[in-house]
C-alpha cells in the first residue's frame, strides 16, 4: 500500500450491511481531499462500487475488509476490498474481469457494452460495477478459493 509521511490510511472491517456503505464512502472521500478533487471523486466511485459488489455478492456472514491509502503528495490512492464471495458468483466475476481487460480503452468499451446489455438483464441487476471501477482506476483481481480481493489504484 502507499506509505509516505503524507498519506492517510483507512482500514475498516465490518459485517456486510448496505447501510454501512454510504457513511464509509463519505468519510473516505472527505479524507481523500488532500489528494485533490479528481482523485477523491474517483475514490468515492470506486469504493462505492466495490462495496456494493461485496455486500450484494459476498457471503452474508463473513466480514468485508477495506484497506485504503491516500497520498496527498503523489495524488494517488489505493483501495482494496476483500471478502468471501458466494461461489456461484466467482466464475461470473472472473469472466467480467477478463472482459474488462487491462487498459482504459478496453474498460470504456466494456462499459459501453454493459450499458447496452442493461435492458436484457433482470430488474435490479446492472453488471456495470466492475466496468465502472475499471474506468476510474487500475483494477486487479485476486481469487483464492472463495476469497476475493479487489485492488484499485487511482491517480
Amino acid at each position, binding site marked *: 500500500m502507499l506509505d509516505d*509521511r*503524507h*498519506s*492517510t*490510511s*483507512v*482500514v*475498516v*472491517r*465490518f*459485517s456486510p*450491511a448496505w*447501510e*454501512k456503505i454510504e*457513511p*464509509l464512502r*463519505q*468519510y473516505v472521500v*472527505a*479524507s481523500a481531499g*488532500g489528494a485533490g478533487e479528481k482523485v477523491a471523486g474517483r475514490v468515492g466511485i470506486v469504493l462505492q462500487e466495490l462495496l456494493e459488489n461485496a455486500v450484494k455478492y459476498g457471503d452474508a456472514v463473513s*466480514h468485508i475488509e477495506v484497506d485504503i491509502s491516500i497520498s*496527498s503528495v503523489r495524488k494517488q490512492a489505493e483501495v482494496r476490498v476483500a471478502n468471501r464471495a458466494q461461489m456461484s458468483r466467482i466464475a461470473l466475476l472472473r469472466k467480467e474481469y477478463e472482459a474488462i481487460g487491462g487498459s482504459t480503452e478496453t474498460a470504456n468499451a466494456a462499459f459501453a457494452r454493459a450499458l447496452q446489455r442493461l435492458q436484457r438483464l433482470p430488474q435490479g441487476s446492472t453488471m456495470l460495477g466492475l466496468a465502472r471501477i475499471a474506468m476510474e482506476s487500475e483494477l486487479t483481481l485476486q481469487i483464492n478459493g472463495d476469497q476475493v480481493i479487489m485492488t484499485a489504484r487511482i491517480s
Partner: protein
Amino acid sequence: MTTLAEGPPTSRLVELRFKPLWLYVDEVREFCGFFARATFEDPAIGDRVGLVVHELIENAIRYGDEKELELRMERLEGSVVIRVANTTSDDRAQRLAAIFAEMMAISPGDAYARALQSAAGRPSIESGLGLPRVRCEGQVDLELEIEPGRVCITARGAA
C-alpha cells in the same frame, strides 16, 4: 515508527491514520460513532464511542506535534477498545503523564466534578475537561503509554 499494539486481526473494526488536522475531527467522530452503533447495534454505544473518539482526537491535535495520528477501534471480549496514538514532544508527554496520574487517582465521577469546578479558573484556551469527560461520560477505563516522541491512550468500555 512503532504502531499501535497488535491485537488479533479478527477483532479490529476501524483503523485510521491521518494528518492531525482540526477539519477531520467531526468526520472521524461521525464515522466511528456510526460504525460502533451499527456494529454493536446499540445507539448508546455509538454515542459513547463518538464522544471518546472526538475528545481523544481533539487532545491529540491540540497537544501533539501535528505530524501523525492513528486511531484504532476494536471489539475485544465484550468490550469496545479505542486507541489513539500521536507523535508529540517529550515535554508534553511528561505533562500529560502527570495530569493523567492525578486524574486516575480518584473515581471517574469525582475527577469530572473536580475538573468542572476548576475549569472556570483556567485560561480560556484550556478546559482540562477532555480526559475526565472521556472517562466519566464515555464509561471507559483509560490507559496511557508513553514512548520517545509518542503517546498512546487506550480507552476500554463495556459493549
